[in-house]
């Protein structure tokens, strides 16, 4: 199964998560197994409580799995690391740093030579089109610009895996479309492996190589769709809509079950 051009970057084996809630325990994730090859764009979709954000936070190293392990190129992770970068829905930019300082934060931690830090920072400021806003503070930016900074901050840090937790959920429709487009361009240019959590079937089918539909109680990966449509994808095309219908049907079958 292992394609030498695209070795597996992420391997998840038997990962479960239980949370203590009051006196009881909540089983958030049933054993999850997942392998993602390098460079793939994966969307995780599912109803609230299906554990998709929990799984993403475990991959990021913010939460420890109750059992099982997560490995990058075969090496088990221990906590957060600069090989994985998260883009949060609420941005989580450092409000006291300018756009430039936010983006250069990762390189500065590694104490690279100053010229290299500046070169990397400039490159990613350009990539997300924020040259004119480089010296602004986050509170002087729109939501779309903030999310661009958050993406650039992770990429400037040389992350191999871009983790995105409903990153465009708080944006208006026009800005969301624009950012989806830009994200695909950045992904094509950098080849960064991307795991993207979303609520929207359309967003998942538009962006991903592969859509994982998750179901709740306890959370698990229910189905794994390959999206082989050529990019750029046309949301009004019959193929796109057929794909969207398939994914949506899979998703709603669980909602109906959960309600019964």
């Amino acid at each position, binding site marked *: 199964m292992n394609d030498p051009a695209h070795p597996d970057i992420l391997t998840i084996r038997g990962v479960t998560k239980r949370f203590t809630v009051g006196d009881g325990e909540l089983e958030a994730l049933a054993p999850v197994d997942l392998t993602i090859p390098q460079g793939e764009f994966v969307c995780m979709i599912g109803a609230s409580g299906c554990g998709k954000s929990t799984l993403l936070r475990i991959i990021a190293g913010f939460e420890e799995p109750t059992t099982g392990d997560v490995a990058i190129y075969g090496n088990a992770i221990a906590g*957060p*690391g*600069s090989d994985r970068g998260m883009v949060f829905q609420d941005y*989580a*930019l*450092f*409000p006291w*740093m300018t756009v430039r300082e936010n983006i250069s934060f990762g390189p500065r931690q590694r104490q690279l030579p100053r010229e290299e830090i500046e070169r990397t920072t400039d490159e990613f400021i350009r990539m997300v089109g924020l040259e004119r806003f480089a010296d602004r*503070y986050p509170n002087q930016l729109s939501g779309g610009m903030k999310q661009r900074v958050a993406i650039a*901050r992770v990429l400037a840090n040389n992350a191999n895996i871009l983790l995105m937790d409903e990153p465009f959920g708080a944006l208006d429709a026009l800005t969301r479309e624009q950012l989806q487009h830009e994200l695909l361009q950045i992904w094509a240019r950098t080849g960064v492996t991307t795991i993207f959590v979303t609520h929207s079937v359309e967003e998942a089918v538009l962006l991903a190589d592969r859509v994982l539909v998750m179901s709740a109680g306890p959370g698990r990966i229910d189905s794994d769709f390959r999206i082989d449509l050529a990019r750029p994808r046309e949301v009004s095309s019959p193929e796109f809509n057929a794909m969207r219908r398939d994914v949506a049907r899979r998703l709603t079958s669980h909602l109906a079950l959960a309600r019964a």
Partner: protein
Amino acid sequence: MLRAFALGAGFPILLILVWDRTVAITGTRLIPSPYQVAVMMYDFTFGGVYDDAFSGTILTHVWKSVQRVYGGFFLAALIGIPLGMMIGRIKVLRQMLDPTISLLRPIPVTAWLPLSMIFFGLGPNAAIFLVFLGAFYPILLNTMFGVRSIDPRLFEAASMLGCSGTGMFRQIVLPASLPAIFSGLRIAHGFAWILIVVGEMTGVPTGLVSVVMEGRTLSPTALVITGMIVIGACGFITDRIIVAISNRLLSWSPQHRE
């Protein structure tokens, strides 16, 4: 802008007029007229009118009081900010120290006066100690509160970008809690100028409060009011300095600007 200034300056002028007229009409000798206070202020600053022990000594007294206020204030900041950051961030430390802080805090600082006189004797050190105590709690508690209310996502973001250990304190905890730290510093600074009054009442020979106290017993009441005005002016000017520094450091956070 000009209108706001006229309104802001107009009211004190009105108060002085009312004060002047009331003294003139009632003919009281308990309260000096604004003119007498102005003369006293001139003499206190430049000398040459009464030529007594207080003439032209304003800088000596201001300097002594300022030394005590800022000795205590900076000591409180030097201990309170790092301690507050550590208590706010480290759970074991919080569990260990929080009950003690909660027990000691309700004791009014002025109730420490007798003990501080026993520890430090009569003199400037007792005043510095009182100022320190009064400034310490607002700084400590605001710093703790500021650290506790940092969005946990910022720590996650920093750690995924390779920041850890002491770098986390310097690069995330300190700047993120700076707005709360500054509101603590400002409250503490107000307390410092209040407590210097109590501290210097213990019988120190120089300092603005000694001028007020001596003025009550030895000199005309005009000196008392002169001393009060100088204390008020010192507190006002230094508060504006703190606000200016805080506006500069917190320019990223418009809700903390004044």
